[in-house]
């Protein structure tokens, strides 16, 4: 019993948790036209002719002039070149009644290319050419050549070509090994944000992978090992780019599109709403377009709403309701279920073909309605409740005949109800504002009206309390009611009445010109930093002299002591030393006035080393003299 309960819970959790990915990009009819126009370029060479002709044929249309195209192919063909043969033969297959001339040399050339020593591209092109020209191919040889090349050229593009080649071989051949490559390649795809799945080699590689994988899977009738989410992510990657740089890119996208809409295993479904997903009493039908990624209708499918619940209250409104097909559009009359206005979450399921992928879609549907204002009662209530209130009822859209006066002893009160016109249910829209506009001064003050527990809106204006908002300007104010919401079709701006407000301590009404906000303001002058307070120059000069005076004292003392320079020997090192020393001191002064540290260090290094050498010599001589005289 408990195990069964657990089983149910697990299933429920899985069902709720499985938020399936749906394609965010596909080829809309406009995109498709653009792709076709891009592919329909005039041919410049055989390769561009191949892309145009075969690309267009994959999208189901023919080139504008088939005969001229065939002539072009025949004229540009170089029978000694495998690539040339490939382009011409593949393109001629797409045209009706176009035959490429064959010769024995051509056939031998193609057969010789099928070997382990040719590149993967050469093998692919020769096998494809042989196959489209109707010539026999030794499938087993090809398979072994492919397998060898896969191990030698271990890159994504080569393996994709191998898959393509294998899809042209006989079904009896051993294609299992090559089939496994699909899974290995799928593991190499990069997942971008859980939305895109593509090779780092780019869009073309991803699109070619799709084409090749489905071609081979269809050929051997084994489902490709791609999960639903991966298929949708591949769809997003291939079709996210809506304008293509080169013919080869457009060709790869066209091939992938054909593969996605025509293979035997996975058909991605695109569900879009016709216009915004919104219903109302005037427009009660929810219309959906269900197509494949080429925006073509899917045959024999049925669409139904699995469940629809209100976003706010989570109550289920609809369950297992089918859509009816009319003129290629699936319709459902949602208003039949009498939904209240608001947003609804729909879970739509597309069934009928076992190949459908991403066939469970979640969408948000808006139900709008019209609002009506009932029981609008205006009254002036005395603050101490001594005088009875006088209520005036006003009907929308007319205005109250008399104006209401409220001074500081009185409150002005307003109450009303907002109901849905069609169902009579009370509504609480997002925006219910009461705006008071002073016609003379242009001032306006906006308040919010709040509903009480019974959904009756009440607004009270306490004149004394609110006088700051009005700047205490007395006068006649026009009262407006503003009602708005995303789900309302008729937002309301209603001049309900005129209210005369009297404030105490009235200031002279200054005419507030809102335009004053936007005139140029007075220019701000930059205030430079005040210079520091310095002592008067007399003081500084005195002290400069004072500080230099001990130097005088020093010289006097030295003379008194008998210091002299009589021992000055005129040896070159001595002179050089003194000159160098003087230069160093001079450098200090120059550093103070002009140089920076780096330059100073440079000069100091030069002068310093000279001085050091000279000084060293001089002092050594002095030392010798001193020791000799001892």
């Amino acid at each position, binding site marked *: 019993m408990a195990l069964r309960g657990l089983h149910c819970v697990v299933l429920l959790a899985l069902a709720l948790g499985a938020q399936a990915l749906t394609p965010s990009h596909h080829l809309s009819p406009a995109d498709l036209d653009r792709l076709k126009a891009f592919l329909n370029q005039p041919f410049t060479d055989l390769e561009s002719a191949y892309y145009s002709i075969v690309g267009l044929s994959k999208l189901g249309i023919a080139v504008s002039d088939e005969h001229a195209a065939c002539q072009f192919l025949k004229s540009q063909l170089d029978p000694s070149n495998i690539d040339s043969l490939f382009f011409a033969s593949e393109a001629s297959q797409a045209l009706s009644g176009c035959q490429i001339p064959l010769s024995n040399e051509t056939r031998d050339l193609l057969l010789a290319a099928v070997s382990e020593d040719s590149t993967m591209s050469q093998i692919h092109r020769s096998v494809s050419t042989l196959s489209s020209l109707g010539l026999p191919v030794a499938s087993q040889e090809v398979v072994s050549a492919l397998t060898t090349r896969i191990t030698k050229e271990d890159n994504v593009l080569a393996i994709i070509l191998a898959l393509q080649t294998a899809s042209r071989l006989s079904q009896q051949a051993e294609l299992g090994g090559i089939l496994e490559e699909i899974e290995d390649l799928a593991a190499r795809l990069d997942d971008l944000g859980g939305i895109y799945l593509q090779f780092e080699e780019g869009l073309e590689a991803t699109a070619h992978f799709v084409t090749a994988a489905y071609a081979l899977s269809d050929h051997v009738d084994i489902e490709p090992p791609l999960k639903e989410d991966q298929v949708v992510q591949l769809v997003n990657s291939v079709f996210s780019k809506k304008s293509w740089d080169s013919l080869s890119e457009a060709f790869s996208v066209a091939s992938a599109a054909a593969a996605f809409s025509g293979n035997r295993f996975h058909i991605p479904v695109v569900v879009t709403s016709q216009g915004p997903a919104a219903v109302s009493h005037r427009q009660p039908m929810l219309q959906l377009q269900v197509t494949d990624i080429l925006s073509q209708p899917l045959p024999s499918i049925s669409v139904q709403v699995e469940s629809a619940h209100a976003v706010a209250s989570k109550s289920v409104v609809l369950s297992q309701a089918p859509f009816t097909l009319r003129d290629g559009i699936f319709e459902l009359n949602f208003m039949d279920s009498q939904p209240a206005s608001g947003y609804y979450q729909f879970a739509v399921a597309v069934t009928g073909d076992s190949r459908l992928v991403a066939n469970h879609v979640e969408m948000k549907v808006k139900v709008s309605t019209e609002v009506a204002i009932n029981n609008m009662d205006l009254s002036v209530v005395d603050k101490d409740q001594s005088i009875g209130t006088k209520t005036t009822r006003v009907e929308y859209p007319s205005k109250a005949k008399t104006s209401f006066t409220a001074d500081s002893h009185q409150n002005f009160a307003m109450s009303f109800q907002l109901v849905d016109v069609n169902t009579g249910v009370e509504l609480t829209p997002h925006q219910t504002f009461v705006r008071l506009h002073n016609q003379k001064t242009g001032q306006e003050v906006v308040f919010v009206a709040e509903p009480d527990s019974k959904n009756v809106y009440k607004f009270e204006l306490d004149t004394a309390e609110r006088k700051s908002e009005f700047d205490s300007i007395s006068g006649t104010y026009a009262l407006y009611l503003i009602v708005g919401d995303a789900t309302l079709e008729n937002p309301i701006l209603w001049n309900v009445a005129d209210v005369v407000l009297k404030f105490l301590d009235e200031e002279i009404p200054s005419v507030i010109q809102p335009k004053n906000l936007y005139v140029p303001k007075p220019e701000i002058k930059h205030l430079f930093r005040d210079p520091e307070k310095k002592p008067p120059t007399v003081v500084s000069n005195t002290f400069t002299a004072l500080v230099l005076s001990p130097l005088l004292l*020093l010289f006097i003392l030295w003379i008194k002591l008998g210091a002299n320079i009589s021992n000055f020997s005129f040896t070159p090192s001595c002179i050089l030393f003194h000159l160098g020393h003087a230069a160093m001191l001079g450098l200090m002064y120059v550093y*103070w006035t002009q140089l920076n540290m780096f330059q100073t260090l440079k000069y*100091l290094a030069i002068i310093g080393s000279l001085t050091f050498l000279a000084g060293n010599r001089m002092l050594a001589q002095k030392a010798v003299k001193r020791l000799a005289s001892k």
Partner: protein
Amino acid sequence: MSSSVFSVLSKFVAEYRRSTPAKLKVVDAYLLYILLTGALQFFYCVLVGTFPFNSFLSGFISCVGAFVLGVCLRIQINPQNKSEFLSLSPERAFADFLFAHAILHLVVVNFIG
């Protein structure tokens, strides 16, 4: 009390005059000059405030540094200290003095602004 201080001082001055070699007296005069210069700079700063502070600092540090180096030189060339500076000749002391001063001047001029 003051008389004893005065007598000590006069005795000290007389002893100094007698026994100090001339070379050391020359260095002492230089030290006195540096001291006075530094003291005057400090007095100015106290009087008028520390603007510009970097100039005051560099001037004062220059005096302090020069005084210290001068004292070092005096200690090193004093013949009474010869036992402690056996390997250091007076010429070497003077060379060190000059080298240290070069670096001191570099730093002071950098900071003087």
